[in-house]
């Protein structure tokens, strides 16, 4: 998924003023037309979800009925999910997404902090190298990754998925964190150091709290990307129980009879966490990108 946005050279607290009103006063009629266009657009974008949601509440027999609304609402499709095998796959997804987020946090934080605070030989080379790894796409490396993990005996293991998802999202995290740390004035940290907090005290009491919005954004991005990942999981897992939800849902397809209502119940459940997380950072994403270009 296209989570890999450009690394915003952000200044943390420069919130974007939501374009309050258009740049110039508009006649009333125009506002109405724009709003109408907006409602049509949002309907077009939401329509597939409505279809998915409604289908997830149908009974098996009424899947083929023509009526838009289900004749009876089968809420048990959503509750049955938790007793089906898919609950195990959701658990795998959760472990992979959490694991790779923790990995990215542990690995990217020191690198980003150090390269933002210190000038050292190879600093630019390091940052550019990290950025270039972002450009390589999974499919070109898939054979290499598969064979590598095969040698380690890590195929079909959750650790390989955690490592791969961590690696795929590391570059973005390093860049965004580096930008945040660089934007925090050194003097603040030094003042805290002189006040007797010690190096680590200064780091944990001053710098990290100030960089927290950046850290959270980077972590949520990693979590969403790992939660949604498909190709690597499809290649690296071989038994159904070890597959994350995205892969497991798709293995329903191609069976003799597809239980669309159960499939969509699973899809709805797989989608809700990502949407909540994305809603949390949405403003920050737009803000970060904008702040980058103002400079």
């Amino acid at each position, binding site marked *: *998924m296209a989570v*890999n946005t450009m690394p915003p050279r952000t200044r943390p607290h420069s919130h*974007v003023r939501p*374009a*309050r009103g*258009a*740049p*110039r006063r508009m006649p009333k009629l125009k*506002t109405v037309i724009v709003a109408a*266009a*907006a*409602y049509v657009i*949002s309907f077009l974008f939401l329509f*597939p*979800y409505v*279809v*998915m949601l409604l289908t997830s509440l149908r009974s098996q027999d009424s899947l083929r009925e023509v009526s838009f609304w289900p004749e009876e609402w089968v809420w048990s499709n959503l509750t049955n999910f938790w007793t089906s095998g898919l609950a195990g796959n959701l658990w795998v997804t959760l472990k992979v997404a959490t694991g790779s987020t923790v990995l990215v946090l542990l690995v*990217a934080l020191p690198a980003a*902090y*150090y390269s933002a605070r*210190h*000038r050292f030989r*190879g600093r630019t080379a390091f940052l550019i190298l*990290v950025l270039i*790894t972002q450009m*390589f*796409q999974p*499919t*070109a*490396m*898939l*054979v*290499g*990754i598969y*064979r*590598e993990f095969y040698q380690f005996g890590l195929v079909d293991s959750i650790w390989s998925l955690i*490592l791969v998802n*961590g*690696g*795929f999202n*590391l570059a973005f995290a390093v860049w965004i964190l580096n930008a945040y740390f660089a934007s925090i004035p050194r003097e603040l940290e030094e003042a805290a150091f002189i006040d007797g907090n010690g190096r680590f005290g200064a780091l944990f009491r001053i710098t990290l709290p100030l960089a927290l919005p950046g850290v959270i954004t980077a972590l949520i991005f990693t979590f969403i990307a790992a939660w*949604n990942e*498909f*190709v690597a999981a*499809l*290649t690296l897992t071989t038994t159904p129980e070890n597959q994350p939800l995205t892969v497991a*849902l*798709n293995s329903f397809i191609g069976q003799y009879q597809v239980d*669309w209502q159960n499939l969509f119940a699973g*899809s709805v459940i*797989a*989608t809700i966490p*990502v*949407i909540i997380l*994305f809603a949390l950072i*949405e403003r920050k994403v*737009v803000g970060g*990108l*904008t702040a980058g*270009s103002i400079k």
Partner: protein
Amino acid sequence: MRVRPAPRGQSWTAAAMLSPTMVVLALVVLYPLVAAMRESFYESGQRLDADGFVVEGEWFAGLANYAGVVEQRFMNAAFNTTLFTVVTVALEVVLGVAMALVMRRAFRGRAFLRASILIPWAVPTAVAGLMWKWIFQADGVANTLLGTDILWTADGPWAKLAVVIADTWKTAPFVGLLVLAGLQIIPSDVYEAAKVDGSTPWQTFWRITLPLVRPALLVAVLFRLMDALRVFDLPYVLVGPRKQSVETLSGLIWDEATRVHYGPASAYGTALFCYIAVIAFVFVKLLGADLLSDVRSRRREARDVA
């Protein structure tokens, strides 16, 4: 920024802080990439040695694995990939700009609109693919609404259109997001000046909005190009693997890899990698100078102010 040679102790700290990142990237990106490139020149399996015994092993194959590059299946996949990229990126730019222009306006329910437009971007592609597969079924919602009997998800020309529609729905928000970010930094006095000069909305868009939003748009297009060239999930989920009409280069590579044809898979992977690198390079060369000059002029302005 001038790099001062670091004192000794510092370079150890640098190594300690940066090495975890380097190790993970080496394991997940660099080694697999190099290994795949090496593999693309080798062949493995069984063959008879000089005495007629079966030996198992790996030997240098030169460019033999690349032979498939000129064959019909690869050419077809390359054509599909290019077609999807051109069509979807073009559609996404037009829609994305339109969405950003609407999202910038103030009206009741704007927050809701923004959320509903941006959500598709966060949804797992695999789930989005399933959703559209259901909509595009033979007796599905799309055919019911249109009153047609099109086999959208069967191998054929309609499958191409289905993938394009689903992909545009999924990623136009991304372009819209980046363009919106670019729009929000255009100072409002520019528009006021244009209005005083009697500029029509049409002129304002082409002469002011578009040129000023260009840098943000170019970044969005670059990212979309690199992403679209490696598309895999949507055709795979929506239509299926090994379907001629929608098989992309990534799909072909995946298929060869699952058939344990590691040599050709690696060769195609290397070819795709080169293709993307060339496109990105040409794009940056053709339009990147513009981006740079933009940065330079901004810096100059900043200096003049100071």
